[in-house]
């Protein structure tokens, strides 16, 4: 007997246990790699199960890419604002002023580049398994 779960059933499960969204969907959508020789494919010959199909390991759930791009955009905007602020300061050779202006300028560069790096890492979730990815995953999962 073939059971056909309804859409409502699966949706209800996912709503009641949101964590299932991270566990079930990746498994159900897991790709397979089939090794078939050309003659075998043409003739419809199936190889033994053990040698024919390789199950790819489970991948993490894909979080919202928008979240990652939001991080990148925010970093670029805030970094640019800080850097321009630092460059617009007129210090006339005063060391405390120069120190502060340079901090703003390079701080902006640091925020922009660091945020971009962090955001790009978030976009790769599901392919990597780093702490930042997992942190981003949990954050993204709450939205």
């Amino acid at each position: 007997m073939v059971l056909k779960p309804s859409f409502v059933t699966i949706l209800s499960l996912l709503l009641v246990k949101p964590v299932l969204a991270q566990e079930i969907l990746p498994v159900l959508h897991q790709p397979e790699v089939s090794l078939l020789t050309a003659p075998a494919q043409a003739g419809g010959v199936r190889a033994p199960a053990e040698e024919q199909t390789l199950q790819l390991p489970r991948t993490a759930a894909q979080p919202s890419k928008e979240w990652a791009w939001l991080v990148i955009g925010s970093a670029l905007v805030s970094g640019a604002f800080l850097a321009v602020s630092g460059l617009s300061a007129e210090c006339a050779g005063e060391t405390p002023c120069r120190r502060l202006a340079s901090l703003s300028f390079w701080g902006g560069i640091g925020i922009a580049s660091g945020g971009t790096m962090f955001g790009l890492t978030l976009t790769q979730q599901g392919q990597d398994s780093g702490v930042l990815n997992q942190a981003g995953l949990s954050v993204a999962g709450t939205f």
Partner: protein
Amino acid sequence: MCASSRFFRGWRVCCALWVAVATQLYVTSCPLALGDKLGKEPMFCSDPPCEDWSYDDVAGAREEHPPGPLVVSREETPTSAESVAQVLAPAAPPWSPSKPELAALPRLTLTPPDYNAPATNRTAYHYVRALAFVGVTNYTVWQFNWFSRQDWAYVTRENVRDNLVGGFSWDGNKLPTNFFSHPLHGSVYFGVGRASGLTFWESTAMALLGSASWEYLGETEPPSTNDLITTTLGGIVLGEILFRLSSEVLDDSSSGWERALREVFAGLINPGRGVQRLVDGASWASGRKPETGVAHAAINLGVDRIRFMRDDSMAAYPLRPLVAVQIAYGDWLPREEDGFEPFDEFDLYAALNLGKLSELGAQLYAQGLLVGFSTPFGQDEGAYRDNNVFGLFQSFDFRGARIAQFGGVGVGPGDMLVLRFGADRRLRIGVDLQYLVLGASSSPYIGERTSGYNFLTGITTSQELYLEAGSWGQLGWRSKQYAGTVIDGEPGEEFIGHTRLWYEIDVVRNLGVGFSPSLVHRLSHFRTASNVALLQLETQLYARGRF
């Protein structure tokens, strides 16, 4: 869990779903499942990604299999509902192939991953990420200097404007700063490019961009010509070497303390890569064991004595402790299809005399093959065949000799003949002629310069002979000569050279002793000052450990 789902219609589906999920999780999360199928070592595939797999036919299977390409197709599973239906469907009867059918099937073999290979299918992601990391590198260095209250780090609008319109000039930093620290800094730029998945040539742009951006934006001082050259060219040499050496240390199949130590050590060798691996999680991701053993490294611990002659009198320093690292990377045989990748072959020698800094015993020599063409030499075949490699070499050299502290970066053609007589028995003869893009040597006459050295350009030539004689030990000889004209400093010409001879022999397995005399000579012709002729002899006696 299933009891609670009675609230929903189709609770049996829930139970079946959980059984299916549990089965899938077991199959996909257990590395042994996949490893057993392949008859190989357990394997994870989360990192590196599955695109790294390679499918090769075993020779026997290929012979018996009808001609035709091996088709590897990736199929996306259907929707969730269909998947559940498929999982719960009665299993198909097991297929019992005959022997001919089994023999005709292709087999899956896994080649060890190449940690030095760039990312396949590079996209904007890799380039932007590398650029962002170069920015982070510069920011980190700048922030350190800012915390150290270095006045030249307080960059303002006026400084940036002056740097952009004022042009380049020669700076007055100390020679070790310009020819040792800056190349190391450049190696980080290069390393983050490689660690981001870029190729060697793409990463050279990262070294250049990182150096140029620092010169324009990182200091209140005008951008420096020599900094740009040494940071970029020296950074490329050291960066690729350090990247490859860190690959020799890394092993994604290891775990526990061994894995932690490997990651820390690799991070020390190549900080940019270490940080990147921490950020993207590669530091603890599982993977397959890489192919290693390309590098032949040795650590020398012993004593070092320096004598030098000036004005017909010989002076000697006391005996000092010596620490040295010697690495020969690659076997000078081309890859089957690709020939040589940049720095597939290189030599590195770094030594430190632990005496006073004023005695200046430090030295660093690195030279690698940029582009190479191999031709057979003789009739031999197989792993012990003889070959000749002609190509383009790039070098970085720094030496803290007492008579002339000097350094240089160069590039030029060279040739290497390798005769192999068996395991641990071979003879290597090499010669090259390089353009000295920029060099420097300390001098009592420095013209208008504020630091005690002159900048040079010219040519260098080096010769090498290395004989591995099995249990009889190894005999090596390497000589490098500089002929340069002063381009900033006291006008004149400089002829500087260093020659090192060494003999090493194993006493027990991989542990041995070595003896090495080396000679540094200098002859300087200055147009407005008296000539300088100096000689230095350095003698090393050490215990050697190979690994």
